[in-house]
């Protein structure tokens, strides 16, 4: 059947199972928008194209399915760049569709012409320029395949206006991807399995490093089975949180720059590291020269380019984590590691069981308490979407995630402004889930225009602004490393409660610890968007902290506790 390129876009998206797209119109994409009205597609009108990409990303992270964002050429497309780079660094499967000027005008600096495939070449898994209606369907089909398979990632499709306007035969079956070189399906060599088993057998002080690959390959069960069978404790990356239940007795908690002290010490003392779907980010390893000096390393990762990138490993098992563990598990010997687990317990001391809620109220409101209260009130069952900064680290420390995809955060790029739009995407993907945004007063203001999207689309989410009047994480670095010279970090903020009301949402201000729980309850009981302005201690810092590039065991600890918190001890 004959269709215009514009129609083929929607025919194809529907066949890919897409029911919602996030976008913003403009001249070069107008034919597609016009055709959209003929199809059962939900379109979320964002307020900035960066928001559309983060929403698609939040949608993808909440479900594992491809999220779709759409924008016009030129400024519409370049506004997507931050969101695409964010998805790239955290391997999130999104497809971005942009309009482009007519194919005859390409290269002429036409109105709103940007070489967006050139611009996004290093920050997409792959991208396409489509200049003919005939190519629309095969390209979309291929793009979804590339985005979602292997190590996922963002894919951009730039479609010229004439390709949208002209007609072509639409044949979905014929549009099947024919990728001759692309091979996402890797399997390890048998000899490497043998080597891995030998190392596991000989280990006395093993630690599993659990990353986002667990969530992406849905390998939580296999990881737990491995850990239980071999009595191996598990350390989590930020992006792995939720992949293994925080409540599991072998789960030690988060590693790295702001990880628990005992976790980093255990890694430094380990004699075997089992890296499961994690990429040894520099926030995880600290100084590479002194990283885990006694440990042999086994790396399971789907991307061969990650092997020996930062940390040289002894054995690499390149493949899908779940498949590799299923293969490996029957061959690994049962073990006890009593001494090692006792040693780790000793490192923990009583800090791990100390409950911050039992600490006396000294009249100050701390972010840790706010986040811990949100965790308690939601029974740990919410999807929490965080922004970037101190609040992000406190969330990781004080909200205990027991299920995969319940924490959505920008780890690799650390994109401020991510949280609110990503939460909108997550809520649309999982309408029955309770979704909380935990965001700093700085990052919130980067994309707060999306409150209008919350209003227009009637999105039922709760936004907790951890308002410390500073670009807190940067202020902390200035305190630690720049003798408290607070260059450009103090914020003069708008009245967030009134701001929420201006958007037709509910606003609540909280200044005291006793007000936290009632505010959280009010927000939970309210249908529709709620913004809570938690005015917290201004100069609190995240502890422990491994300074960038320092040895992992060289943690800065809280000097004289204003508030003692579990992670500090």
């Amino acid at each position, binding site marked *: 059947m004959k269709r215009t390129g514009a129609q083929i876009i929607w025919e194809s998206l529907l066949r890919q199972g897409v029911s919602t797209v996030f976008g913003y119109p403009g001249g070069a994409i107008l034919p597609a928008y016009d055709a959209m009205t003929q199809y059962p597609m939900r379109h979320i009108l964002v307020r900035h194209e960066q928001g559309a990409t983060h929403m698609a990303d939040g949608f993808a992270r909440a479900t594992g399915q491809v999220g779709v964002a759409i924008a016009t050429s030129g400024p519409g497309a370049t506004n997507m760049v931050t969101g695409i780079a964010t998805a790239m660094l955290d391997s999130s499967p999104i497809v971005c569709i942009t309009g482009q000027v007519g194919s005859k005008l390409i290269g002429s600096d036409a109105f709103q012409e940007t070489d967006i*495939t*050139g611009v996004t*070449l*290093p920050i997409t*898994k*792959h991208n396409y*320029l489509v200049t003919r209606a005939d190519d629309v369907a095969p390209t979309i089909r291929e793009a979804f395949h*590339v985005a979602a398979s292997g190590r996922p990632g963002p894919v951009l499709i730039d479609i010229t206006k004439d390709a949208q306007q002209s007609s072509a035969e639409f044949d979905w079956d014929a549009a099947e991807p024919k*990728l*001759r*070189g*692309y*091979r996402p*399906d*890797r*399997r*390890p*060599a*048998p*000899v*490497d399995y043998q*080597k891995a088993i030998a190392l596991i057998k000989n280990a006395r002080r093993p630690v599993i490093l659990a990353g986002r690959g667990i969530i992406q390959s849905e390998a939580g069960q296999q990881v737990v089975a491995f850990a239980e069978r071999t009595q191996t404790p598990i350390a989590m990356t930020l992006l792995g949180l939720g992949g293994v239940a925080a409540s599991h007795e072998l789960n030690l908690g988060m590693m790295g720059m702001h990880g628990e002290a005992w976790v980093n010490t255990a890694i430094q003392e380990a004699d075997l590291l089992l890296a499961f779907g994690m990429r040894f980010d520099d926030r995880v390893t600290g100084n590479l020269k002194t990283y885990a000096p006694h440990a042999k390393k086994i790396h399971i990762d789907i*991307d*061969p*380019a990650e*092997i*020996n*990138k930062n940390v*040289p*490993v*002894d*054995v*690499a098992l*390149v493949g899908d984590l779940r498949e590799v563990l299923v293969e490996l598990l029957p061959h690994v010997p049962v073990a006890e590691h009593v001494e090692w687990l006792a040693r780790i317990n000793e490192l923990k001391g009583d800090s791990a069981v100390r409950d911050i809620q039992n600490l006396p109220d000294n009249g100050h409101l701390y972010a840790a308490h706010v986040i811990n209260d949100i965790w308690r009130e939601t029974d740990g069952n919410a999807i929490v979407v965080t922004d970037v900064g101190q609040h992000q680290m406190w969330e990781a420390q004080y909200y205990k995630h027991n299920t995969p995809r319940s924490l959505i955060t920008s780890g690799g790029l650390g994109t401020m402004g991510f949280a609110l739009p990503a939460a909108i995407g997550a809520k649309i993907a999982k309408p029955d889930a309770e979704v909380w945004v935990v965001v700093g007063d700085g990052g919130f203001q980067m994309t707060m225009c999306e409150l209008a999207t919350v209003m227009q689309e009637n999105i039922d989410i709760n936004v907790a602004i951890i308002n410390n009047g500073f670009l807190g994480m940067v202020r902390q670095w200035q305190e630690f490393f720049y003798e408290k010279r607070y260059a450009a970090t103090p914020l003069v903020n708008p009245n967030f409660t009134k701001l929420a009301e201006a958007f037709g949402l509910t606003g609540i201000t909280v200044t005291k610890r006793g007000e936290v729980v009632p505010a959280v309850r009010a927000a939970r009981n309210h249908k529709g968007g709620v913004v809570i302005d938690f005015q917290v201690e201004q100069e609190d810092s995240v502890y422990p902290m491994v300074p960038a590039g320092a040895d992992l065991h060289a943690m800065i600890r809280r000097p004289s506790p204003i508030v003692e918190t579990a992670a500090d001890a």
Partner: protein
Amino acid sequence: MLHTLVVYVEDKPGVLNRVASLFRRRAFNIDSLTVGHTETPGVSRMTIVCDADPAAARRVEANIYKLVDVLRVDDITDQPAVERELAMIKVAASHETRGQIIQLADVFRARTVDVSNDSLIVEITGSGDKIERLLDVLKPFGVLEMVRTGRVAMARGPRPASKLEDRFAGEDAHEEPGVSYSV
């Protein structure tokens, strides 16, 4: 050390850009890159020479594979291979020196491809080393202009499959399971 990679890619616009961009972005050092058609329509072949230790070379290879338009990468550094570069060198030549230059070129099996009153063009094919040595002996006469291709390379002996198409179409299109990435 220098590694020679033979990379087969889809003959599509922008592929060279993707490969070059990858080297720049990952801060891999390209010594030379050449690209051209192959015996199979739709498939281009690149010869990439890069400076890397063995572990880094593995990562270069793995990263090139990540490009969707890349069909196959062979690191032929340790294989017996024929490697060639081509150079054209324009040398200042008077009546007195012309004969001498042509003789020297002969020793290197280089050809004189153009002669004018005060210069001539010498064309040489061979290893980079050989070209360097010819250059050394020509320099005293005055090298006016030079153009060099990058290196092209081909492994000696028969290939595992007769035709490129066969190799990319069938089972072989996928990474043979069991390639070891451990070093």
